[in-house]
């Protein structure tokens, strides 16, 4: 399968009080359309989680597509909590692979900063089981904290070993012009930062921010008709789900949906994990990154945090993990994140990512997750 990336667009992530959903979506979408040489898409897929709960806005496909000047075509929202962006890409790829559309604009957009943190925290907690987790005041951070404590105690991993990940992310993100937090931090900063849900500290957590990312996907046929054939394509797509409620998972130190989604995507693309030059993975919290590196087969069980502390996955290593700065530093406008990742990997392969570069990258992976491991999408991008 080849679904070509004909254009990409990003907004800088931040607390953008002067911009609404349409402003953000329009900025990213038209950058992607312009980047593609002006392809007007056959269909629009919007990745978004919180428009209903925070913006009181449903019907987002029509709202966004028509609002940014693209009426008269199919458009809809895809929601999979923090994995909405990846699921939107998966849907866009499906539309092209099925032949229903020759070109699809996938735009991930999230507006999170209109309300105080307690309100946003509750909205995000809707990614969990409403009747048996959210009801009891188990925040989304809290559920990830359960996994983090379990992992650290099971494998004897120290606080400082875990902290190597956010330190690396902030170093990478410091030079990404689209990142929300462009500031380096130290292991000591992490250890001193506020406890959000023990053992997760503020500097283990991705920030709350607004942003939008867009990608213009085209079929082989449309790609051939362009003056210049796009150099990057999505060559593998995989998705898998697991129980939303943590209590019914087999074990707390595994994310089986990630392993399964990755297996499907890599198999489809004919790529082995060791061939990957760059990966953008879902580190809403430090523990997510650590578990996902292990699920991708890039680190043995219980060892990922230590490997990061020893310099593995840093710029120059293969694969380089999250040169964008990841969710931790680039930011995590939840429903847009999965689209940011695909755009970032595509730019790495094109050689025009404006932050930490992975020179000569040929193959990359983007992994986006919804809930604490309940929805995972993986896309493989290749230079073609």
């Amino acid at each position, binding site marked *: 399968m080849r679904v070509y990336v004909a254009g990409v667009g990003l907004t800088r992530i931040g607390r953008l009080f002067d911009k609404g959903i349409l402003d953000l979506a329009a900025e990213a979408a038209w950058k992607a359309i312009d980047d593609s040489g002006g392809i007007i898409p056959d269909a629009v897929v919007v990745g978004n989680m919180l428009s209903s709960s925070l913006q009181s806005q449903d019907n987002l496909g029509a709202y966004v597509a028509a609002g940014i000047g693209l009426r008269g075509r199919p458009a809809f929202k895809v929601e999979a909590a923090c994995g909405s962006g990846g699921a939107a890409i998966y849907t866009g790829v499906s539309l092209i692979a099925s032949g229903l559309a020759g070109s699809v604009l996938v735009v991930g957009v999230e507006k999170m900063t209109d309300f105080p943190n307690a309100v946003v925290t509750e909205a995000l907690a809707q990614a969990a089981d409403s*009747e048996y987790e959210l009801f009891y005041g188990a925040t989304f951070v809290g559920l990830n904290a359960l996994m983090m404590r379990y992992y650290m105690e099971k494998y004897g991993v120290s606080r400082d070993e875990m902290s190597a990940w956010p330190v690396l992310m902030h170093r990478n993100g410091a030079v990404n012009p689209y990142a929300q937090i462009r500031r380096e931090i130290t292991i000591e900063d992490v250890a001193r930062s506020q406890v959000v849900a023990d053992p997760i500290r503020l500097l283990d957590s991705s920030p709350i921010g607004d942003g939008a990312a867009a990608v213009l996907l085209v079929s082989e046929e449309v790609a051939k008709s362009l003056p210049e054939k796009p150099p990057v394509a999505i060559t593998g797509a995989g998705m898998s789900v697991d129980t939303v409620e943590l209590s*019914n998972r087999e074990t707390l130190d595994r994310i089986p949906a990630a392993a399964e989604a990755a297996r499907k995507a890599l198999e489809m693309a004919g790529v082995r994990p060791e061939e990957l030059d760059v990966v953008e993975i879902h580190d809403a919290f430090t523990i997510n990154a650590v578990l996902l590196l292990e699920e991708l087969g890039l680190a043995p069980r219980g060892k990922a945090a230590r490997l990061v502390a020893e310099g593995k996955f840093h710029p120059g290593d293969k694969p380089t993990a999250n040169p964008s700065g990841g969710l931790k530093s680039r930011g995590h406008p939840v429903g847009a994140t999965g689209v940011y990742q695909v755009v970032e990997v595509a730019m790495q392969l094109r050689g025009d990512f404006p932050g930490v570069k992975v020179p000569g990258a040929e193959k990359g992976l983007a992994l986006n997750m919804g809930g604490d491991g309940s929805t995972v999408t993986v896309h493989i991008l290749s230079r073609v």
Partner: protein
Amino acid sequence: MTEHQTRRGEGGVSAMRLSPAMLWRTRIPRYRLVGRECLECGRRHYPPRPVCPHCGSRRLRDVVLPRTGTVETYTVIYTVMEGFRDRAPHVIALVRLDDGTRVLAPLTDVDPSGVSTGMRVEATLRRIRVDGDTGLIGYGLSFRPLMEPRQGASK
């Protein structure tokens, strides 16, 4: 005015809209700690699902789960969501009941600094949250530290 603005401000009690029908529908698992046992693979789960999360069988029966268990892991939540501001820090645990079933619930009657993995706990019923608009109270499961009876002590 958005929904959130109308829902906040009732003494900071709760933003969650509680549905009487939802509370009624979930009363048996919530109040009596009833889970499900799979008639194919024999494993139990909680909260009850229409299909066994372990093997996919639809042949299930309701079972009253044991009320005692061990803390498998826990967290102390400082940044609480709406409706829990008055009880921060809020302790949430995953408890392995004595039959191996895993249950998520708050810990109560305990100093957060005194919680540890492996701690013995027992199930109890507690007020969990109140609907800020209607005053409807949602009761549910909590776990408290278990005072193990000494060997040979009479009941």
